[in-house]
């Protein structure tokens, strides 16, 4: 395979149909003093140009860790990638030399984080931090980089960009800071943008503006977007496909419309009934009982079984499908839908094959 | 010494003040929280080898100060024979002899008592002054705080050794009790008088942090008196950083005492003191280096004992350091 060509605009690749990114059976664990913590346990997904994939899960479900593994910014140690592959445009990033991997960060894959205030360096102006992308990857001079930074700030709709380019992160509001992060991330027209809880720290009205901005940018450039969130509303509005994570595994996957209207995994089902929905006013919310699992001691069998209302134990269970001993694989339940539950058909209300 | 002094004081203020994490009081620390803090800290301490080295050394020197005879192997430090003057260490006399021909081991061992007495007394006075002034300044705020803080600034601007040096020099010609005694009391008071400011700042900042917390507001809403709030809710929060600071400061002040004595304004002959021994030994540093070396070594180990215990204590009491 030749060197990756990251100079062509993503839009030109958009219709070729090959996936930009394929994550294959990724395993990550943290080696701590009190033993290994299994943060990601065999996650696989792919992303095409123009696609928006939402990764949905509670904190500790491994969604951020898998994203950081893709970026190659996991703290190693304590984190160790113990298995799997991350294929970016046909090349396994885990087998690349560090220097080559670094060159993909920015023009290839880019990332924005939840807390823009702590994620921006407080002692440099935002213009400098945005311009750094051009200086590090394109070898531009200071002046030219600053000019490009102003253009980018305009593009992410920061008012009076030319005047504010030399301001410091703490001088911006939360929403504006997140726009600065976005400007930085899209500076080199990346193939893929990973947004890790981009709107969690923001006001609801500002959330919508930031999501709109991301969608518009995706429209313009054709980049693939991985949206990591626990916010069902955000997923519903912007994502094409959704992968639901629990205890470091994907437990359900499909298009947003399908998964949201008819969940095939009891955990997804539980998530849907635990948030208020505008359509069904007056109904009672049903929280999922119990605590998210301790990743140092993941329950045997189906990791969700201690909290599952549909679990079947002992004699109740069908052969080979005992929830506390048999691990349910992620399998195709109905066309276009995968779920990791022994009894997904039951959840969906369709006859078993 | 002065420089190290200043440094240590400043360092402890910085570290103890910011790292104990007790200054973020969103929950009441009385009973449960406080208990778990101390039992967690003890669990952490038990596993820290530095703490054990410090503690063993500390206990060793404490015992040495109480029953020096045991460590001196029964030799009287004042039983001297000029014929042995400056004799080098031997199997019978591990530390050799000093200028007067006295057994040096006995002399060095007997020096522990005055050092520890002065170090501990000075720190106790520092704590009394620091806690009282700091609590008043922090609790009442406003003009009171302004005046007391400026006062601390004034003392802070004077190097510890320099202030104590001047006071101890003019002390004997005054009629102020203790100060004019040329004894351990005078040295301890001089050190405390120019060394209380960091404890005051520690307590003051803790009090200010806790004062504005929700649970103190709640206690006040339930009609608790100002004094009760201060004693029951606010001061317990300041215990951890002040304890760390006090432990290290014992060591620092022991070193300062030796320095003042060396400079001629601390303890006077015929008192037995490491500072005096170092001072007397420096003239024969070429011919009999052991006369400087042994008191220096024991002095250093004593200071190190307290510094190590304090360091370990700070690490144990700092929740952020725990994985």
């Amino acid at each position, binding site marked *: 395979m030749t060197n990756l060509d990251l100079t062509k605009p993503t839009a030109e690749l958009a219709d070729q149909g090959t996936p930009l990114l394929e994550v294959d059976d990724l395993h990550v664990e943290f080696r701590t003093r009190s033993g290994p913590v299994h943060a990601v346990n065999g996650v696989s997904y792919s992303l095409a140009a123009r696609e928006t994939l939402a990764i949905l899960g509670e904190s500790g479900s491994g969604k951020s860790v898998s994203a950081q593994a893709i970026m190659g910014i996991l*703290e190693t140690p304590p984190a160790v990638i113990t298995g799997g592959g991350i294929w970016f445009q046909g090349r396994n990033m885990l087998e690349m030399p560090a220097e080559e991997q670094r060159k993909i960060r920015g023009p290839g894959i880019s990332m924005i984080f939840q807390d823009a205030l702590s994620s921006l360096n407080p002692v440099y102006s935002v213009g400098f931090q945005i311009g*750094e992308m051009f200086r590090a990857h394109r070898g531009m001079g200071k002046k030219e980089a600053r000019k490009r930074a102003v253009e980018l700030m305009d593009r992410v709709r920061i008012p009076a960009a030319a005047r504010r380019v030399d301001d410091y992160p703490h001088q911006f509001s939360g929403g504006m800071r997140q726009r600065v992060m976005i400007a930085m991330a899209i500076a080199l027209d990346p193939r893929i943008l990973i947004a890790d809880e981009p709107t969690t720290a923001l006001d609801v009205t500002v959330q919508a503006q930031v999501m709109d901005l991301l969608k518009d940018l995706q429209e313009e450039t054709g980049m693939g977007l991985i949206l990591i969130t626990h916010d069902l509303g955000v997923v519903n509005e912007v994502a094409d496909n959704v992968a639901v994570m629990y205890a470091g595994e994907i437990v359900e996957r499909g298009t947003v419309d399908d998964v949201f209207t008819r969940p095939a995994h009891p955990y997804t089902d539980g998530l849907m009934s635990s948030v208020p929905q505008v359509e069904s006013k007056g109904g009672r919310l049903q929280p999922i009982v119990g605590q998210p699992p301790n990743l140092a001691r993941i329950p045997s069998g189906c990791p969700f079984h201690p909290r599952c209302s549909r679990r079947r134990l002992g004699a109740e269970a069908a052969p080979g499908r005992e929830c506390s001993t048999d691990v349910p694989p992620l399998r195709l339940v109905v066309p276009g839908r995968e779920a990791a539950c022994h009894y997904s058909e039951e959840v969906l209300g369709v006859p078993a094959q | *010494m002065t420089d190290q002094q200043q440094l240590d004081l400043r360092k402890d203020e910085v570290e103890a003040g910011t790292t104990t994490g007790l200054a973020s009081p969103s929950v009441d620390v009385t009973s449960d929280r406080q208990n778990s803090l101390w039992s967690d800290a003890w669990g952490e301490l038990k596993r820290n080898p530095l703490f054990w080295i410090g503690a063993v050394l500390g206990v060793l020197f404490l015992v040495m100060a109480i029953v020096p005879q045991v460590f001196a192997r029964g030799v009287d430090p004042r039983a001297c024979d000029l014929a042995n003057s400056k004799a080098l260490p031997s199997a019978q006399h591990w530390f050799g002899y000093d200028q007067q021909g006295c057994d040096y081991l006995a002399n060095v061992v007997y020096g522990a008592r005055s050092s520890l007495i002065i170090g501990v007394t000075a720190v106790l006075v520092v704590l009394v002054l620091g806690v009282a002034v700091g609590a008043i300044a922090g609790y009442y705020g406003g003009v009171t705080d302004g005046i007391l803080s400026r006062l601390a600034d004034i003392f802070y601007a004077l190097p510890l050794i320099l202030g104590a040096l001047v006071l101890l*020099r003019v002390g004997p010609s*005054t009629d102020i009790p203790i100060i004019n005694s040329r004894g351990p009391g005078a040295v301890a008071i001089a050190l405390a008088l120019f060394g209380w400011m960091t404890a005051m700042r520690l307590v003051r900042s803790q009090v200010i942090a806790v004062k504005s917390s929700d649970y103190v507001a709640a206690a006040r809403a339930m009609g608790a008196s100002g004094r009760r709030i201060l004693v029951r809710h606010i001061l317990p929060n300041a215990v951890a950083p002040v304890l760390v600071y006090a432990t290290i400061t014992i060591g620092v002040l022991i070193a300062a005492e*030796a*320095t003042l004595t060396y400079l001629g304004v601390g303890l006077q002959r015929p008192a037995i003191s490491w500072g005096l021994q170092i001072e007397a030994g420096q003239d024969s540093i070429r011919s009999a280096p052991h006369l400087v070396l042994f008191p220096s070594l024991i002095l250093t180990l004593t200071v*190190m004992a307290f510094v190590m215990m304090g360091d370990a204590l700070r690490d144990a009491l700092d929740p952020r350091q725990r994985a």
Partner: protein
Amino acid sequence: MGRYVARRLLLTIPVLIGASFLIFAMVYALPGDPIRALGGDRPLSPAVVEVLREQFHLDDPLYVQYWEYVRGLFSGDLGTDFRGRPVLDTIERTLPVTVKLTIVAIVLEAVIGLTAGVLAGIRRNSFFDNLVLVSTTLVVSIPILVLAFLTQLLFGLKLGWFPIAGTREGIYSYILPGLVLASGSLAYVARLTRTSLAENLRADYVRTARAKGLPNRTVIVRHTLRNSLIPVVTFIGADIGALLGGAIVTESVFNLPGIGREVFDSVRAQEGAVVVGIVTLMVFFFIFFNLVVDVLYAVLDPRIRYD
């Protein structure tokens, strides 16, 4: 910024006055007679005592004495010692020695302390890191007094690398005393750098810098060191003020004729005017460099704005 500096300058005045008055009061007001002490064992004649008392306002109340002193101060007159030599001359003679010593100490402190701290902070829990931890504990525990003799013994007498007393060999004479003077701060700089660096390496913005695909060097130097060094640089700045006033022991042991040894000699001789003059100068240095550091903080960290 200008207004902040002005306000801070105003606030330093009471501290400066308070500290010099404190020393002044200790030297002149405590019972005991400096004139009589001057005579030592041989009492001075009453006529001489009378003249000296008049000259130093010793019969006026304390505040009048102090007022006379401050008045002199503003006209550049720091008074004279009992032998009639102007205090200003004494300071002019001794200050350069202390300044040289401080410069050597600060350079050693910054270079060695920073290097050790950075290496330890980047490779946490490595052999070198543990070495730095242990050796700094050791250095902090060794009293300056002991360290001074130890270095004299080792580097001066045994190895013969450096002169151990006096200033005859130029800047070379200052290396050992500078190292001794700097030792405690050096250890602290190393530890502060290490902690600060290790803490910053975990910061979110460092993760961002990696995610931006910046070269490792840029991530460490520009996005970690730059931030980590703010507290270190300010500590070193404030330390200049502390070291200028803190060299009594070092200068005495190494026989350097600086203001530290001068003030010590003057305290012993109860030369009040010299003591008060030099201590006031030391306090001024201390306050001045603290103020400089506060301003420096605002320059280094844009989040801090004083107006």
